């Protein structure tokens, strides 16, 4: 499927003997994003769009957007979309999917949205085995509002609301959403990936594909957590943010598939 918005100008067409091996997916709208330089939302958006194209699901996909930096994610996907109240994307997606059984419904939520204010709605939608796919961006801070402590903030991490570093006693430890989701009977697929390296990004795309496949095959709730960088609120360069994911986040949030009912 070719999206005319993504058509390349003449100068970008392959020359003789060449083939275009990387292009923007048709499900991604061809416009600059509002995200900060080095923000991993852009990578996550592109991966989701690529998977929708590959599954031939773009025409029947519905995005339920969240609140946070990803509030405007509906501007970047060439699919129908709704904007949910803060944290309630999985509840809204439940209604969309039940009313339109042929649709492919996904939510795109950050950690402040899904793991904090929307935890109840997300967990219960997953426990009911709603046929939706939830994409969960974990960057250990509230991004849009200025880098406050999120449920996923690491112990000792300094944020604007934990200036001395997050403490286990009093503020709690980082919430591991993938393990939480994998423990629910309604969840058919749960995996944690990271977006800090080429290898991890390629693995994340496979996980996203599986999380959509369990929905399309009617197996249950699909969940993918993506460990992402927030260079702005971490006060570091995009390169240092990638190193932080590898050195500080992955040891606390281990990567891998926590649940997979696809092969059973």
């Amino acid at each position, binding site marked *: 499927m070719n999206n005319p918005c993504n058509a390349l100008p003449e100068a970008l067409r392959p020359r003789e*003997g060449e083939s275009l091996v990387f292009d923007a997916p048709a499900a991604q709208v061809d416009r600059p*994003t509002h995200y900060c330089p080095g923000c991993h939302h852009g990578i996550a958006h592109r991966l989701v769009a690529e998977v929708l194209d590959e599954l031939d699901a773009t025409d029947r996909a519905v995005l339920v957007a969240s609140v946070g930096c990803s509030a405007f994610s509906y501007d970047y996907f060439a699919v129908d979309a709704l904007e949910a109240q803060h944290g309630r994307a999985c509840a809204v997606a439940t209604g969309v999917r039940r009313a339109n059984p042929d649709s492919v419904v996904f939510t795109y939520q950050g950690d402040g949205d899904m793991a904090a204010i929307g935890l109840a709605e997300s967990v219960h939608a997953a426990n009911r085995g709603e046929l939706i796919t939830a994409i969960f961006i974990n960057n250990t801070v509230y991004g849009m509002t200025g880098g406050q402590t999120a449920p996923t903030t690491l112990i000792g991490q300094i944020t604007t609301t934990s200036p001395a570093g997050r403490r286990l006693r009093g503020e709690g430890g980082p919430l591991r959403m993938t393990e939480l989701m994998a423990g629910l009977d309604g969840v058919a697929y749960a995996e944690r990936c990271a977006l800090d390296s080429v290898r991890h*990004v390629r693995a994340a795309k496979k996980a996203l594909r599986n999380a959509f496949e369990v929905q399309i095959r009617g197996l249950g709730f699909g969940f993918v957590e993506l460990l992402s960088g927030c260079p702005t609120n971490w006060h570091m360069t995009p390169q240092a943010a990638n190193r932080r994911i590898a050195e500080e986040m992955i040891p606390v949030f281990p990567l891998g598939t926590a649940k997979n009912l696809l092969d059973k």
Partner: protein
Amino acid sequence: MSRIVFLEDRCKGCRLCIDACPAGVIRPSGRFNHQGYEVMTSGEGCTGCASCAVMCPDTAIRVFRTARTAEGGRA
């Protein structure tokens, strides 16, 4: 030889492509786009692996791969 093309108006100068390139052919260009971000440029030696494009948060890179020649190298 394979090549990459930067959509310079999309680049935000994050330089993640520089780290991703296994051939080390990407470098800052010294030029700035209309948003004020320094855009990247690439030299000789691209293998068309698309690692830079995979890591680009702004889908600002297109990759053109040249087929291998009979001698085993790239044309």
